[in-house]
């Protein structure tokens, strides 16, 4: 069997393991599903009058506007949960056993990321389903929905890379868990929950340059008005930027982990 086929099998097996692990542990699945769904309900019910503000983009409903934010929240927390689970594997010695196995090292990280990407896909499908059930229209129709799903999945892979790098570097689940508040900060300082033009300073200015805002707009546009090349390209560029950052950090952290054991 070729090296590539072996690596693909390892990635598939580890990815499937990480998905099973997430669904078996309430601590890992609830931040991805329960909390973002609760917040979506609360924010949609509580702040929906915001669509009447001058400057709010034309939308069918506030729920339609909020779907992208809920997906982003879930995707970011999937990346964080993936990092925590990876760090637990390091703490328990499972990763050491994988390092000793005759498999490519990059496949170990990619396996974890494949699992995180699958959770991102699940989050996108979950929130699209919730949106459709509660009456939100997907203006971009099936191609728009597929684009949103693809962007959320790719974002989960990208954010998961940073979570994996921190897990490899620290080898501590509590350190990765400690990033949870940072995830919330990044989310609130983006246009995930409200149009950037209507946010209050300094959040408004920070949101303008936050890469997550570009991804959110890329996911939101196909839902609220249809596919738009500019927003899509900006989202892809932001995701690629995070992927590169995640790759560089993961490679350095992997070397560090192999050195310290």
């Amino acid at each position: 069997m070729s090296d590539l086929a072996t690596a693909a099998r390892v990635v598939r097996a580890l990815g499937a393991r990480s998905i099973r692990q997430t669904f078996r542990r309430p601590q890992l699945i609830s931040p991805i599903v329960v909390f973002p769904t609760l917040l979506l309900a609360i924010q949609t019910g509580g702040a929906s009058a915001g669509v009447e503000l001058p400057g709010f983009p034309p939308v069918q409903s506030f729920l339609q506007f909020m779907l992208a934010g809920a997906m982003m929240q879930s995707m970011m927390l999937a990346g964080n949960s993936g990092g925590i689970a990876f760090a637990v594997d390091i703490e328990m010695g499972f990763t050491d056993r994988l390092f000793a196995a005759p498999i490519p090292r990059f496949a170990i990280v990619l396996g974890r990321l494949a699992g995180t990407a699958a959770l991102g896909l699940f989050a996108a499908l979950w929130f699209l389903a919730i949106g459709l059930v509660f009456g939100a229209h997907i203006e971009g129709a099936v191609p728009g929905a597929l684009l949103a799903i693809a962007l959320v999945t790719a974002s989960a892979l990208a954010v998961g890379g940073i979570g994996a790098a921190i897990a490899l570097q620290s080898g501590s689940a509590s350190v990765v868990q400690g990033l949870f508040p940072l995830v919330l900060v990044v989310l609130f300082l983006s246009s995930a929950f409200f149009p950037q033009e209507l946010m209050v300073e300094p959040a408004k200015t920070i949101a303008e340059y936050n890469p997550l805002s570009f991804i959110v707009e890329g996911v939101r546009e196909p839902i609220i008005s249809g596919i738009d090349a500019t927003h899509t390209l900006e989202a892809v560029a932001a995701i690629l930027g995070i992927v590169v950052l995640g790759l560089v950090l993961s490679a350095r952290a992997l070397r560090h982990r192999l050195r310290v054991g």
Partner: protein
Amino acid sequence: MEAATAQATAPPAWRANLATIAALMTRAKNELVRVPGAAIPGVLAPTIFFLGLNGVFGALTQLQGFETSSYESFIVPVSMLQGAGFTGAAAGVNLARDYEGGWVDRLLVSPAPRWVLLAGNVLAASLRSLVPATFVLGIAFAIGARWPGLDGLVVCYLMVAATAAVAACWGSMLALRYKSQSAAPLMQAGMMALVLFTPAYAPTELLQPWLEKVAEINPMTQVLEAARQGFVGSVTWADTWPGLVALTGLLAVLGALALREMRRTNV
């Protein structure tokens, strides 16, 4: 003869109970002092929510129906109650951890009544909730939240401490039922829903009809209105007593359920 002498010299039951509660509260306080990092998430999360919600939804005050133009004043009691919810839920998580570690087993074989063991945990959470509340309030004042007056502040802190007690009863009940820290998300999500399915983000008349209905039957709405009154207007008895009644009811129900679980544990 010896038994009679021992009975004569033993402290009265109420004093022993108070001493046990104080010891359990001191243990919780020691944890706060010795592991300050453990308190950070409980302080950080409501602070981030407060600053984040203020930055994101601050423009909502331009809508008709808001009784204040300061969103930070409107939202700060929500974050203080949210901090109380997190702190109370954390008491449940800590109890589950203590159960997993065998500490609860040792408490249960002691002669202390079960309600005393529960009260120690609940009152400690109540006291601890003042830390995140004060931190969030300090940040709110720094960015321009309105001074609620001494009476408004006292009512707000009372609501915060009692909400933490409610959350601790809820958390303890789940901890003793599931006997595992895995129940933590349920403890946190339950309190999050209780605190936020209220007019948390906007006044009742601006909520969507379904949330308006939920908020009407959610007792925490009365608690939030009582805690908020000083920040958005003046403090009145008419806005205070429904909050007190709601908290008394919640404490009675959840306290009874937690005690029931405590009595069932290891029987």
